[in-house]
């Protein structure tokens, strides 16, 4: 007994030191490492050190992939004060030297550093422009509005509605051009328009494996059309065989995700995008990735995704852009980069996440609003549409994301 007491008395300081050091090391490996502050505010963008290691999951070198993950900054914001018809912007599309923005009060075109607005008075189906795409074949601009589909061709606006065409519904959430075909996702089903034969196709629960008639997003890629069917997961249409199939949440329950990577996270899908043979699916419950064989889910509590509430998404090569209600996230399969506003001032925050490690960088400029609704990228530039204004960012050449 005495010996034991002596042992404790002698070693208490040593034991305390050991426990304290373990305790402090607990801090150092915790997820949020905010000690790093890259001083972008002084325009001294410094490359973040990237450690080279091989991913056990993919066998690829994370350093190589991370180096491909650009970081954007130098945000410039445009609002009504700068010439936009409304602050609320639904979508944005870069078209060569000009930028097309769909707002709640018309189409705004940015060219030669000035904005020009087109409204229903000019021939738009409705002033609320929800989606824009440009045909690679003809250069025609297709506009999905709250009151029909509009084609802007050679300076003329032509409108398609339920009354004069085969549109399933006049609320066009998404429009895309796929060769000569135009696809739409509407409040009453998906639709296709063959611009050569002028034939329409309507796809609903009556002729496609949809649970419900309403659709929200559509994209093309890999010889297929993918439809985000609100309440019905993702509908895949193979153009060659004209066959449909669906991808739904395997657990069949709306209130839970039973297993993380068993399929699309939720049946309420809000958008789809396809690039580099990867299908990305947005929901208000998280993000799903499908490589043709396996599904992988990303939630705000287990990844760098800033919010599960994803309004829109767009893939550009290996990088997918995610418009959420808490900012803009981007992801290349390994590294997340999120752009947010600083709550206390007009500055921005760049949050880089790789695995369990996170770093936050302060930036002098910021996206115009954290409620991001649309995005488009081209070359070194990204444009976003938000709840309050439009922002343009550019690649910070000396900075790539990595930890």
């Amino acid at each position, binding site marked *: 007994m005495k010996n034991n007491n002596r042992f404790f008395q002698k070693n208490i300081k040593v034991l305390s030191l050991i*426990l304290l050091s373990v305790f402090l090391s607990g*801090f150092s490996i915790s997820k949020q490492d905010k000690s790093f502050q890259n001083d972008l505010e002084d325009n001294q963008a410094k490359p973040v050190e990237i450690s080279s290691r091989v991913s056990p999951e993919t066998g690829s070198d994370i350093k190589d992939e991370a180096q491909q993950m650009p970081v954007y900054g130098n945000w410039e914001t445009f609002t009504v004060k700068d010439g936009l018809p409304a602050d609320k912007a639904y979508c944005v599309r870069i078209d060569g030297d000009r930028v097309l923005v769909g707002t709640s009060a018309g189409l705004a075109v940015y060219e030669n550093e000035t904005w020009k607005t087109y409204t229903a008075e000019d021939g738009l189906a409705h002033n609320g422009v929800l989606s824009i795409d440009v045909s690679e074949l003809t250069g025609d601009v297709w506009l999905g509005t709250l*009151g029909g589909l509009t084609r802007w061709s050679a300076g003329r606006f032509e409108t398609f509605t339920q009354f004069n065409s085969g549109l399933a519904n006049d609320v066009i959430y998404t429009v895309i051009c796929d060769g000569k075909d135009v696809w739409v996702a509407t409040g009453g*089903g998906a639709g296709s328009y063959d611009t050569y034969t002028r034939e329409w196709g309507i796809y609903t629960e009556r002729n496609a494996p949809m649970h419900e008639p309403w659709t929200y997003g559509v994209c093309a890629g890999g010889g297929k059309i993918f439809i985000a069917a609100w309440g019905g997961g993702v509908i895949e249409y193979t153009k060659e065989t004209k066959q449909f199939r669906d991808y739904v949440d395997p657990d069949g329950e709306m209130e839970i995700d039973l297993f993380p990577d068993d399929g699309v996270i939720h049946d309420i899908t809000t958008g789809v995008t396809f690039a580099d043979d990867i299908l990305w699916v947005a929901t208000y419950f998280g993000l799903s990735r499908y490589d043709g064989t396996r599904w992988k889910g990303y939630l705000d509590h287990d990844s760098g995704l800033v919010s599960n*509430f994803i309004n829109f998404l767009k893939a550009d090569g290996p990088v997918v852009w995610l418009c959420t209600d808490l900012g803009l996230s981007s992801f290349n399969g390994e590294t997340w980069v999120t752009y947010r506003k600083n709550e206390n001032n007009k500055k921005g925050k760049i949050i880089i996440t790789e695995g369990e490690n996170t770093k936050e960088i302060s930036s002098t400029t910021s996206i115009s609003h954290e409620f991001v609704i649309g995005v488009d990228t081209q070359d070194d530039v990204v444009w976003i549409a938000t709840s309050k204004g439009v922002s343009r960012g550019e690649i910070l050449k000396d900075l790539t994301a990595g930890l």
Partner: protein
Amino acid sequence: MILTNNTNVMKNQDQKIKLRVLVLTILTMFFLFPVSDLNGQDKKLNYGNTTDELVPYGRFQKAYKNFFDDVQPFTGAGREKVPPTDLTEVRIGFLGPLEGSILTPLGIQMLQGASFAIEEANNKGGYNGIPFKLMPHNDVGLWGAAANEVVKMNDEKVWAFLGSIDDINTHVALRVALKLEIPMVNSGDPDPTLTETRIPWMIRNIADDRQSSYALVNHIYREKKHSRIAVLRANNRYGRVGIMEFRDAALRYGFPLVLEIRYNDGEIDFATQIERMIKSSPDAVVLWGNAKETALIINQMRQMGMEQPVYGSDRLMSKELLEIAGENAEGLVTTCQYNPTLDEPNLVAFNKNYNERYGMEPDVFAAHAYDGMNLIIEAIHKAGLNRALIRDLLTDHKTFQGYQGITGELILDPSWNDIGSIWMTEVRDGKFDFFPTPPLISDEQENKKSTP
């Protein structure tokens, strides 16, 4: 003695040292393994008044993520918008089946309930002296009409809207409401999936089919001890989605349905379906659909010799059903989202005044529309003319949590679904006799009962 004192002192020191080591160890473990670092969700909350036995996969697997443990905020802009100063009326939208649908009688009741609330509000001076004006829209028409109608409401500059009854139309409307950021109150669609969309622009002030299903499952399997249930339901979304929770709950209690078959709206001959039900030897039948067809089914069931007890969905609590089914309806048990016969002064006054105003008794859709419209009116009074601020009040789980309407107390869960009380009815002597839904009987209670 000195030795004893020394021993005591050493013992005390020893205990203090051990205590320090213990505290340090606990602190170290706490910071080394913070709970928030766990990937799976550890928080245990049963969504939608679901008992442990009825949690999806709950007997076998904990879900990786429960989606409705928290509230989805609206983080967009709009709260800073200054209200207009030149208004001559404060417009509130209405979306319902007003023409061209089998639901039109329900839609008319809903419209009358909403109009009645508007009239009362205007009699009290409107909004700061400006009258409220209801902007009615029919959700039946061209494909996806509801979407187009909500856009029209936005063009009309409504501050909020009430709608609708049909599942599909209400879902479509909600999606547009989110895009256009118009606060929405749903008073007539019990589809559980409506509020499971995570859209922070709508609240529902009527109990959903999940609550109806739990009440029925408890009554049928645990109280009445039936075990073989056949279901005949409408081949529409109300029937398909409505029965979903009942089917799942029955399965989780250990009683998979012996049969589930459908009929189309407007059918009048159900002999084929009833023959199939007879062959399945059920000890009770559940009917999920509209009143008219269900009444015809009950008549034909009795004609064909089926004497089994019949249970049904909320829409069966209808005067039309009693008129068509007559004595055959005796013993029918349904759920109902409120009790119109309660001796509550506000409810009694509403029933009387509504009857005088419209020459008919209010139904469940009229009563809930009246409450729903009053929620909108009160939110406008408190928030002012700003959609985002009106939304904030409707969804804050404070301002209207526990709101006492004529249909009862409003309790909103994190998805803004009304999980307040639900009632049950039994047809006795040609009338619906209301009784409160008994508490759900757990497995443990059930096992205790069956163990001598």
